[in-house]
Each structure stands twice: as C-alpha cells, then as structure tokens.
C-alpha cells in the first residue's frame, strides 16, 4: 500500500519484498528446500530397499534380472535427454528466446510422455507375468522368498517416481502455456527455472532407481 514511488513498479514484485532480487532469492531457496523434502520422501523407500536387499540378497539379485533391462536403459536415456532439453529451455528464456524455449519445453514434455509409455508397457508385462506383489503374486520364474518384497519395493518406488513424472510434466505444460502466452522474458523467468529444477529432481531420482532396481 505504501512503497513503490521510488522505482517503476514491477508487476511481479509482491508487496512484502523490497526488491525483485530478494524475491527471486526467496523463491529459489523455497524450491531447493522443497526438493530436499522430496529427496527425503524417497529416502524411506531407499531405506526399505537397502534393508530388504540385505535380508534377501539372492532373491533381489534374481528378481532384478527379470526386469526388462532395455526398457530401463531407454528410459534412462530419455530422461537424461529431457533434463538437457529443460536446461536448454531455461537457457533460452534467459536470453529472451521465447520460441526456442517453447520448443525445448515441448521436447521435454514429449520425453516425459515417452518415459511414461515405456514404463506403462513394462508394468503391463509384469502384471501379466504375475509379478504384482501381495496376494496377486504368482510369478513362476522368481519364487525365492523375498521376491515378493522386491516387487513391492519396485512397484512402490517406480510408481511414486512415475507420479512425480506426471506432476513434473503437468508443471512443464503449465509453464509452456505461459511461455506461449508471452509471460516470460529475459527480465522475468524464475518459474521456468523452478519448473526445470523440479524436472531435474525427477530425473535424479530415476538415476538412482535405475541401477538399484535394474543393474545390481
């Protein structure tokens, strides 16, 4: 209500910040803290994985051999590529290149769809083989005690990750729509940066999930 006679008012500056730099710093800090909470959310599942891998080493080893390694590798490549493209989108908007930014975001979103499609096919195969854990488990090829737990952890971890892919994708679609409406420019691009950060986190979690579940 007071303030803002001195500078030209910035439409993105909230009333309780003095400068846009301070506000940008605040939202970045907030985002990093939020990403920290996301890491801790997954940490519980990683802990479960570690404990049960220790208990049922053989079963975990054997069950992981029965995942589709090529699907996993393809998905890893897809996600890493999408991380690059989202970084390029951020770089583009920082220089005011709106069209390039939009193109890179579209590419990232396509990658996200591809990832989900491949994951869906993988899930479908596993359902048919009877690897859905709990009372539905009747996977004939892996019967060692503990295999059920492996698939529980597998479905929970990749499921939670897929949920994050969907959320990240929705955020990117929203940001894309704002880019297309010309909301961002070289002087205001923080939301693109934050969306990109979230997408990197989604990528990072997968980079840990992939070797743990598919390779070792």
């Amino acid at each position, binding site marked *: 209500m007071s303030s803002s006679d001195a500078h030209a008012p910035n439409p993105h500056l909230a009333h309780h910040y003095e400068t846009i730099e301070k506000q940008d710093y*605040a939202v970045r800090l*907030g985002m990093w803290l939020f990403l*920290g*909470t996301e890491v801790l959310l997954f940490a*519980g*599942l990683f*802990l479960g994985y570690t404990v049960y891998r220790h208990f049922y080493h053989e079963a975990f080893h054997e069950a992981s051999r029965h995942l589709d390694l090529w699907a996993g590798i393809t998905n890893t490549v897809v996600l890493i590529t999408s991380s690059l493209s989202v970084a390029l989108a951020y770089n583009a908007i920082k220089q005011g290149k709106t069209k390039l930014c939009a193109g890179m975001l579209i590419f990232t979103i396509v990658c996200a769809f591809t990832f989900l499609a491949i994951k869906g096919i993988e899930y479908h195969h596993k359902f048919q083989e009877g690897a859905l*854990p709990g009372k539905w488990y009747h996977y004939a090829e892996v019967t060692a*005690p*503990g295999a059920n737990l492996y698939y529980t952890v597998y479905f929970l971890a990749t499921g939670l990750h897929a949920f994050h892919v969907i959320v990240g994708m929705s955020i990117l679609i929203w940001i894309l729509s704002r880019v297309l409406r010309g909301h961002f420019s070289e002087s205001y691009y923080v939301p693109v940066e934050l969306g990109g950060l979230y997408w990197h986190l989604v990528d990072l979690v997968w980079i840990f999930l992939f070797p743990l579940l598919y390779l070792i």
Partner: protein
Amino acid sequence: MSQPSQLHENKPPVYPEVNYLNADRGVWSWLTTIDHKRIGIMYLISVMLAFLLGGIFAMALRVELLTPGPTIMGANTYNRMFTLHGVVMIFLFMIPAIPGVFGNFLLPLMLGAKDVAFPKLNLLSLYLYWTGATLVLAGMIMGGTDTGWTFYTPYSTTTPTTLFPVLLGIFILGFSSIVTGLNFIVTIHTLRAPGMGFMRMQLFVWAIYATSIIQVLATPVIGLTVLLVGIEKVGGFGLFDATRGGDPVLFEHMFWFYSHPAVYIMVLPAMGVVSDAIATFARKNIFGYKMIAYSSLGIAFVGFFAWGHHLFVSGQSAFNDGAFAVISMLVGVFTAIKVFNWVATLYRGAISIKTPLIYICGFLFFIVFGGMTGIAVATVSLDVHWHDTYFVIAHFHFIMVGAVIMAFLIALHYWFPKMFGRKYHEGWGMVAASLIVLGFNATFIPQFLLGNAGMPRRYYMYPERFQALNVASTAGASLLAFGFLIILIYLIYALVRGEVAGDNPWDSRGFEWMTTSPPPKHNFDQTPIITQDPHSYQEPGEEVEHVVI
C-alpha cells in the same frame, strides 16, 4: 527503531481504529486472506477446537479409569478413545499449535517484515490442515482407529477398524507442516528488517527456525511411512509383515525417525516462547542469548539421531541401545543449557508476577522434572522396566504436554494484547494458572507412581491395588479441565469487553511491539530499522551489570 514504549505517558491507551481485524470485513475476506496475522488467528481457533476435542477424549479416558472394571465404556471404545486422543492432540494440536498460531502471527512482526515469504502457501498450509483434520475426524466417525497414535505394524495393517482416512489425514497434515516450516525458513533468511542480523533475532525466531528445519527434514519420512502402512493395509504386500518376509521393526525405525524429532517440533517453539517472555517479565536482558539460540539448533540436530531409544525392547542390538541412549542424553545437555540461562535471567531481575510468569514457573518445573525422567527412561536398563507403562505416559505428558501447554498459555496471555489489543483479567488469569499447574501435577505425578508400580498403558481395566492413584489422577484432570474452562470464559469476555491494552502493555522490548496492537493490515507503515539487540532492557547509557555471553 521506533520508540520501544510509551508507558509513562498519562494518556489512556487508544484502540487503533483501523487494524488487521477490521481492515476487510466478512467471512469470505477471512477465508481468502493471505495476511499472516489472520491466518494465525484462524489457526488459533482451529487448534483450540482440536484441543477441546482431544481434551474431551482425555476426560473420557480418565473417567473410565476411575474404577478397576468397566466404568463407562468397553475395551474397544477405550482403544479408539486413546488412539483419537493421541492423534488429535499430537497431529492437530501440539505440532501446529505454536508455529501455526504464534509463529504465523509474530514471526514477520518480530523480523520487521510485512508478511511471510510465501503468503499464499501460508494459506494453503491452513487449508491442508483443515483437510487433514477433516479426514481424521471422518475416520473417527466412520468407526475409529484402535492402534494407538503410533500405528505399530503388524497390528495396524490387520486391525478391522477404519485406518485409511486417519492415515491419509496425517499424510496431508504432514504437508501442511512442511509448507509452514519451509515458509518460515525462507522468511527468516530473506525478510529480516534492515539492521537485523541473525544475532539480533529474538529467541522465539531462533526456536521457530530450528523447528522449521526439523519439520522440513523429518516430516516427508512420516508421510511416506503412513502411506506405506495404508498401502500395506489395502494391498497386503507384506512390507511390514514378518509372515511374508517383511520386517515390522523397519516400520518402527521409520516411524520414530520422524516421530522422535517431532517431539522437538512440539517443544522447541515452546522453549522459544519462554525465552521471549521470561526477559519481559524479569525486565532484564536475556542471559546467554547465543547459548540459548545455538542450543535450539543443537537439539534439532541431536534429535535426529535419538530415535532408537523407542526400540530398546524391539530386538535392537546392545550396541545400538547404548549409542542411542548416549545420544538421547545429549538432548538433556542442551535443554539444561537453556534452563540455566532462563533461571539466570530471572536472577536479580525486576520481576513482575503476572499470569504468564506463573506458567513460566510451571514450565520450568515440568521441563526439569520431565527432563530428568527422560534421562531415566533413556537409560536402557531402567527403560526395560518402565517400557509401555504409565511411567512413560507420565514422562511424555510432563515434558511434552506440560511444556507445550504451558508455553501455549504463556504465549496466549503474553501476546493476547498484541493480537487483539485488549487485556484479559489478571486476577482470573492467576487463578486459572494456579489451578492448571496444580492440576497438571495432580494428574501426572500419580501416573509416574502407577507406572513404576507396573501398571501398563493402554488397558481399560486394572488390578484393584492401582485404584487410589487412578482416582487421584482423574481428580487432577478435573482440576485441569476446570482451569481451561475459566480461561475460555475470561478470554472470550476480554475479546469483547476487555480493557484497551495500548500498544505495549508489558513495556516489552520485543520487536513485535514496535507496531500498534492490534497491528495494521501491513504490520508497519514504514519498514523499521533495527538498531539494538533483542531482549535488551538497558536504558541508554546504563552499564551492563552482568556478564554477557
């Protein structure tokens, strides 16, 4: 800094005509507000309702325990009652109480800011709280949960009672807590007024800072854990079921990795309230400012590595038992640092005995006595004897509930004029405070004795030899309830008819009193510039008479 007080002027205090309470009108303006003060007030109403509900459950439990046999309810009802008492009091009252109400209301004022860093997220956290609370209450109406607030597997995954809405509610309440914590951390980092370094923040702010770190780091883990229990109950995957290869103790580890730090989410803000209020009522510079500030961070840090003391009888290795016991005792060291500094602040102060100071004395007693019993239960050999008895119940209620409720009442009385611009009745305040401190002791000291004599927790019947102490405990609980009733009445009266307090009725040097009481919508007409240390009661030119650490 603007003048700290206008106490010695003779004009009668005036109630500011335009303030945050009447700047906008209508229910809708409250429900869509992003003003941190209004959000704080809505939290205040919500947590008090939760406290009332949890209190009613507690009284029902105490009435049931009046006689050795069934009194007013059967075993199943009793199990549901203690579960709901625990869930409501912990997740709906103690965790959000001080950060949600007083953190929201005061943090920006103490920092000289116009709002918290993310006002919309702040409103979101309130709505998440309401959603979570609704789900928990829905769970109660749909039949209730009987697992205790700890949801230990495998019982929780096999119980026929309604669990899922309660777990989902707790998951969402966790989000609310994370959002609040994240918001406060960013606020403290970015919105301090010019001149306010970290070493000029009030101790309440330091305590909220330490609390927020725990909220942000620990809460996601409980979120995932309750989610896993819920999924496990629906899907039956065997994650925590030993018959299918799972490990129930893994659940205990994951649960306590959050729930032990969670006790510091509850108690650290309480300590912050006391640090702030004690300097005001001793009219003396706080003793050992840095030590109190750092010890909050120390508790937050050590608190993360103490969870194993809940698993002394769960088949943990002897080495782990010993390590967790020693780490748990470190918490006592940091707490003791605070207690010594508080007492040293009172020493040779110009003490004004007001209602908040009575609660401060109660707080000091509960935290020392409860803390000492905490050291006792952290000792492995003793804990094996006391585990799952009323001794643990009494310990927990002394250190957690005692400390948090005392601090909540200190804060409510001390900052009541700040929030509403009116004074409560000091005489009735004293009466209620004395009743509550006495009632609290009368309720829980018998429970220490019961536990030591071997009465287990969570049973609705007991052998006849325990009856006398149980009756004493119930009598104490009635005193407590009566005290709260008095508070409710005189505070509601004060809201409507209370004497106008003026901007700074306690003549406090806290920065939150720099603006009018109640504050205007945007807190400060001009951004304040901080030129003095917090809790500084020196007059200009006066020598400091004690050693400043």
